[in-house]
């Protein structure tokens, strides 16, 4: 049976709820403590970006399978302003919010697969997967 969970992000509490849900699912899928921390941190960054830039959106977390591999897939969706320069946001240290600028490039390094779909004024969907080793 495939497991999945869905968290609405419309406040800072949504960030906490999303990462707790993510940690639970990562544990159930069989990730060790280090990968649980990686997945949880990635979810936290994605959820915060939704809250910070789009005010609201969703984090969808599900078990992923592909040719015998198992893993966890996180889909972060919002209908916010979109990312104008995707290459720029993937640069370390680039920030428009006064943060560390480690968010999205950090998520990419924590996870195994990472994809951004973003249309200005329509929104952003970020899909990222971590595979069990």
């Amino acid at each position, binding site marked *: 049976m495939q497991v999945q969970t869905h968290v609405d992000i419309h406040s800072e509490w949504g960030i906490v709820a999303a990462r707790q849900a993510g940690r639970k699912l990562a544990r159930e899928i069989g990730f060790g403590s*280090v990968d649980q921390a990686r997945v949880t*941190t990635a979810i*936290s960054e994605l959820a*915060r970006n939704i809250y910070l830039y789009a005010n609201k959106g969703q984090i969808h977390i599900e078990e992923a399978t592909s040719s015998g591999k198992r893993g966890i897939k996180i889909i972060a969706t919002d209908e916010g302003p979109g990312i104008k320069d995707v290459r720029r946001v993937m640069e*370390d240290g680039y920030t428009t919010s006064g943060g*560390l600028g480690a968010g999205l490039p*950090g998520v990419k390094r924590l996870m195994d697969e990472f994809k951004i779909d973003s249309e200005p004024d329509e929104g952003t969907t970020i899909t990222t997967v971590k595979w069990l080793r």
Partner: protein
Amino acid sequence: MRIPILKLHDYLLISVQVDLDDQTALQFQEDVLNKIHQEGSRGVVIDLTSVDMIDSFIAKVLGDVVDMSNLMGARVVLTGIQPAVAITLIDMGIVLEEVPTALDLEQGLDRLQQELEG
């Protein structure tokens, strides 16, 4: 939610045992600085043994609290950072530069003593 801050002679001892949301983290930052001011503390140990995730926001808040306390004249040592948290922070490319750290509370207090006397 407020994180309790204990006073021990010239020091403040803090053990973070909640899942830090942004508001709690910022409130904590302010509380530490106010308590340093109020008590005239020379050193602070922030123990992170029970923290199982530090993302870029919380890392920034912690780094800032160290810098802000230094500005006020108090030294801060972070202790008990879990292996998974250390690995994740480095993976993310987050380096807490010039932040004194120690393995546990006991060594953190020793470290503070060195920092303040040395």
